[in-house]
């Protein structure tokens, strides 16, 4: 019976695939743990930076530091963060869709892109949208240096008034099973810390203005670093979920195929018995 052989072959192939998806899930879980640790490790710094920023910014009343000054958003730069690899569910397409939606909604007169991650680069390379900077290796080795270089480009363009605002589109790491696409303004810096301003009257060395000037670029750099970390963790989470689902689907499929296989085998046995029995009956008669 050729049919049973075919089914057996399919069962074997699905089993192989399942082994791969299972392994990928394990790998994603291990990488996720590492990515999560990095996010946690950056938290104390984030808290400290926020506190210091708020106290300086409230102290330096009415500064129009260029990085804080909002102007009409005509030309905008979108930072689109995807993964380098696929097989992580809708992770990449969600981000790209969110970026396209943002462009459609806001009617910016000119948009530039800074795609991070190979998937975003592959997608936007074939579209008629100018790309500010190729960033294909940023995720490969996620370091502070990368965040620093990107932030330099952004700050230069913003201060040189080549762009009026910078938005980041990325997957936020909510939990292991949940990612959430966020569109977040990076530049100009939002003054949302004003309410938290401390009452303390500080002395400043060298001076409050100088400190603010040093702090703001650091803030941008850190925001980028945070976005990259979030996205990296979210990617592993998404891949874990996707591979878990794939493994389960493979199990279902194997079960179904095994059932069919047994049924066909049984049918062929029954058929053979009937043939033998009827053959015997014919020779007796």
């Amino acid at each position: 019976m050729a049919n049973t052989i075919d089914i057996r072959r399919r069962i074997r192939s699905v089993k192989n695939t399942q082994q791969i998806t299972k392994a990928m899930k394990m790998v994603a879980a291990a990488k996720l743990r590492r990515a999560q640790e990095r996010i946690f490790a950056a938290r104390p710094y984030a808290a400290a930076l926020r506190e210091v920023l708020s106290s300086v910014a409230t102290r330096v009343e009415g500064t129009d530091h260029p990085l804080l000054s909002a102007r009409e958003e005509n030309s905008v730069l979108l930072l689109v963060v995807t993964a380098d690899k696929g097989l992580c569910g809708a992770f990449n397409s969600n981000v790209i869709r969110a970026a396209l939606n943002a462009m459609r909604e806001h009617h910016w007169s000119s948009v530039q892109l800074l795609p991070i991650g190979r998937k975003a680069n592959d997608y936007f390379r074939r579209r008629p949208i100018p790309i500010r900077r190729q960033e294909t290796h940023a995720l490969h080795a996620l370091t502070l240096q990368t965040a620093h270089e990107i932030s330099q480009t952004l700050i230069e363009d913003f201060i040189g008034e080549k762009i009026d605002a910078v938005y980041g589109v990325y997957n936020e790491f909510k939990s292991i099973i949940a990612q959430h696409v966020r569109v977040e303004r990076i530049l100009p810096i939002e003054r949302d810390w004003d309410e938290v301003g401390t009452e303390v009257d500080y002395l400043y060395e060298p001076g409050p203005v100088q400190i603010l000037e040093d702090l703001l670029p650091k803030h941008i750099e850190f925001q980028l670093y945070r976005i990259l970390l979030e996205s990296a963790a979210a990617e592993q989470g998404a891949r874990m979920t996707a591979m878990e689902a794939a493994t389960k689907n493979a199990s279902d499929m194997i079960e179904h195929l095994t059932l069919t296989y047994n049924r066909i085998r049984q049918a062929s046995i029954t058929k053979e018995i009937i043939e033998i029995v009827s053959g015997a009956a014919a020779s007796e008669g």
Partner: protein
Amino acid sequence: MADQLPTKFRLTVVTRERKIVETDAVETVLPASDGEIGVLPGHAPLLTSLKVGIMRYRTNGEGQSLVLSWGFAEILPERVIVMAETAHLAQEIDPAAAEAERLAAEKELAYLSSHDPEFAVVEGRLEESVAMINVHRGI
């Protein structure tokens, strides 16, 4: 009645990659951008930027040194937070690597003019490696 001065303060040193120190300290010396600052409990609130250099602190009895490069410090009467670009505890420093780094930075510096934007970066690396060597020697 005057307020009682605290006898210790909470010292925290963080970088973007990790929290390095969190302890109660009785004294610390920071490499502020305008020169070293000594901090004792009850210091007036101060925000300062930091440059490359050696930071020291003393808990009850024990002293410890770190090499910092740039960053900021927030000083309050009962708390000191140091946010550094990079920070290395004295015992983590590899003197051979620091020495190699010093030589490399010196060589690079010789080819750069002082107007080059790279100059400050390499100079910082040189200062950091020198500070590391000094800390290691216990200077």
